[in-house]
């Protein structure tokens, strides 16, 4: 197990370095010179532009820029933002916890709602409840999130005044974006849970449990749900990865000052060090979540063993 984790982490590191190189190259191919952009529409005198480029290190050949960047990054120094001159590390340190909070809240909402709906539908398979839940689930993944988010704002923030319209500090700020971000994951989780429940409920040991005269509730929750959870765990992990994408849109709808909003802003100003760091952190999260999911498997399903 320990060795397995070590191997996976090693591979993750390789992936990270490669991803950083990919983004590094993509950014420099993109039109737009960060130094030039400092001046808005009208260009400064050439000499001044050259000075600015030199000050940002953009006058160096690409390989040198990359080597410098990676060298510093490996020492934990992600450079300073071209725009604000703040250390990128501290910018991320400020933003990342917010996006993490948003994502976790969305995940909790999605899991609770999704599993509950899925279990209910699976247990009452064929009923109107089942049909209604599954219809809602298909609908849930079909509505564009920026549209859904706006509707939530109108109803719950402007209309009822329960939550705030925008912000990223208090729990009132987090609820609506988290629901928006979690809705499609909830739908997917509900479907998977339902399918797994249906599957598990036909198994022999459930029949045995029933024959033994155990209460339905005990059968469902003690025996069936535990086994049905295995595919659910994998899908929850996957959804968390997708949420890092979804956060880009949702954070912009709700003025939520997380990494997604930072990414868009940094991209518009071609603030290379910031974008690189955002990608690196997001990618690391994605990889770690996947690893965690795989490890959770072994806990839930004793049949799976990693050498």
């Amino acid at each position, binding site marked *: 197990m320990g060795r397995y984790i070590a191997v996976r982490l090693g591979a993750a590191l390789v992936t990270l370095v490669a991803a950083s190189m990919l983004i590094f190259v993509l950014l420099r191919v993109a*039109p737009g010179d960060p130094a030039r952009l*400092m001046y808005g529409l009208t260009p400064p005198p050439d000499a*001044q532009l050259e*000075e*600015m480029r030199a000050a940002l290190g953009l006058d160096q050949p690409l390989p040198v820029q990359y080597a410098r960047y990676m060298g510093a990054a490996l020492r934990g120094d992600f450079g300073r933002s071209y725009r*604000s001159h703040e250390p990128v590390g501290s910018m991320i340190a400020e*933003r990342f916890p917010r996006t993490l909070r948003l994502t976790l809240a969305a995940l909790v909402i999605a899991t609770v709602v999704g599993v509950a709906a899925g279990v209910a539908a699976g247990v009452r398979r064929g009923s109107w409840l089942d049909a209604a839940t599954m219809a809602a689930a298909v609908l849930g993944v079909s509505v564009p999130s920026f549209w859904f988010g706006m509707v939530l704002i109108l109803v719950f923030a402007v209309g009822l005044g329960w939550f705030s319209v925008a912000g990223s500090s208090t729990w009132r700020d987090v609820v609506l974006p988290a629901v928006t971000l979690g809705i499609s994951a909830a739908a997917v989780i509900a479907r998977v849970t339902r399918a797994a429940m249906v599957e598990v409920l036909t198994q022999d040991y459930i029949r045995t449990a029933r024959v033994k005269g155990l209460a339905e509730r005990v059968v469902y929750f003690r025996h069936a749900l535990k086994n049905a959870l295995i595919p659910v765990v994998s899908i929850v992990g996957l959804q968390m990865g997708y949420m890092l994408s979804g956060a880009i849109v949702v954070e912009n709808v709700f003025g939520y000052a997380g990494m997604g909003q930072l990414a868009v*802003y940094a991209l*518009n*100003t071609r603030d290379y060090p910031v974008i690189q760091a955002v990608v690196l952190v997001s990618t690391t999260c994605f990889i770690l979540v996947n690893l965690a999911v795989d490890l959770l498997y072994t806990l839930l399903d004793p049949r799976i063993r990693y050498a």
Partner: protein
Amino acid sequence: MRAFLRTRGAAALLLVLALLALAACGGGSGTGGGDSGSQDGSSAGPAPAPGSGEEKGGTLVIGRTGGVDSLDPARTIAGPAHEVFRLIFDTLVRRSPGGGFEGDLAERWEVSDDGLAWTFYLRQDRVFSSGNPVNADAVVFSFQRMMSPEVPAAAFLGPVQAVEKVDDHTVRFILAEPFALLLDILSTEYFGIVDPAAVEEYGDDFGRKPVGSGPFVLKEWVTGERIVLEPNPLYRTSRSDVENQGPPHLDQLIFREIPQVETQLAGLRSGEINMITGLPAEQAVLFENDPNFRVLRGLGGISIAYLSFGMVPAEDGGVNTFKPPFDDIRVRQAVAHAVDMDTIVDTVLYGYATRNKTPLPTGVFGYDPSLGSLVPDYDPEAAARLLDEAGWTMGPGGVRQKDGRPLAINFWSLNMGSAPQMAQIIQNQLEQVGFDVEITLLDVATYVSQAPTGDLDLEMLDQGWPAPNILNSIVGLGWGVGLYNNPDLLDLLARAQSEADDARRAALYRQAQEVLLKDLALVPMYTATVPLVTRAEVQGIKFDALGGPLFHDAYVAP
């Protein structure tokens, strides 16, 4: 994202003041600073009952799109940053409400006969919010810092060579050549005076911990979410355009960053924010007749929206030429005839703009409406006639053609504010006289990198800057009218800038504009005003000479 990047500027002189105007609301809005009456604060709602003794205060929360990168004037010329740090720093001089300039941190100034030395005498009672005195050392320090080449605003200083301390309260600017626009430049907030002790203490972090002598101090900055300002208890001013000469009444002034306009609108309606700056005109107008809100006319009179034509650089480095089909002046005139600018100002900008047929903004020195007669009026029939004369005859599908080539043009603009709306209307009107128009809307980053080499035939831009050398920036872009290097024009602009006599300088700027308009190198459209929308409980907002909001007297009624 559409609205994130608000930088704009001019090299030799940026436009950032006006940034707000163009960027914040894009092509969007406004009646000009020319609307004098709307700028004196009288539009800011009923004045508080004088002497009522009520406790003024409250928290003013401003929602806007842009992100602030830094609050250090040496680091950024972006509009959203400027909108905040103008409240933290004071400048040597400021524009006076009646025109001209008056002392701010400086009490008075004098110019040497040769125009090469400007001496400023500082007020002796001004202190930074840290308690340190605003003295000659601080001023010299601030300007030396700004003159470093990696400071984006450095180029604005033009021929300024050095800033010297004469005595503790006197500084002298040494110029390489006379520079008539020095006061215009020094009055922009890019040249706010910073506390040297704070800069030394915080170094690169000064942009997050700015210390100045302005009405507000930075209390808290949650990046990407909010910037919280509080009154500077040591503040005092001599401004004649506000009643309160001491620290502002407000308990807090908060700038919230909310990227999407629709979310800002929701926040204003829910009461989470009580003011929005830079709203597109078509949004602001919706609040006009609602008693719960108030629409104020803010920054205006310093921007110019215009159409300009693609140009081809001359291979021998000589005079550049217009790109076909606009190499024929009749086709350029046809564009001016085809677009119904008056209707656009009235119905698309809902009057949050002043029709302006000259290259200079309505509120800028040298503005001369009589030059407008050089620009063709709306007259689609005349447009059709000119195109016929130029050999572009009507072909199939309503698209004109000449020698089998269709009259197809690429029309570029920025993907922000009302520009997309405006572009579609202009496209529609040009197509009615037989153009085939393809729109390209880009973010600023892509625009400035692709415009110099891209397939740009016609563009619509909105530039802002409070001084007449905005013309230098318009013809300094590096594409479109920015390639218009008519030697007469460049000579006139250079002479105007160093001409100390007002009348002669005005005449030179008039001639320069004539050159541009006679050649129809650009088609001026309008000068916008940025609307501010507040909730009704927000009281006492006044405006400076350019229409920038002043919060000295502001409070939020409970």
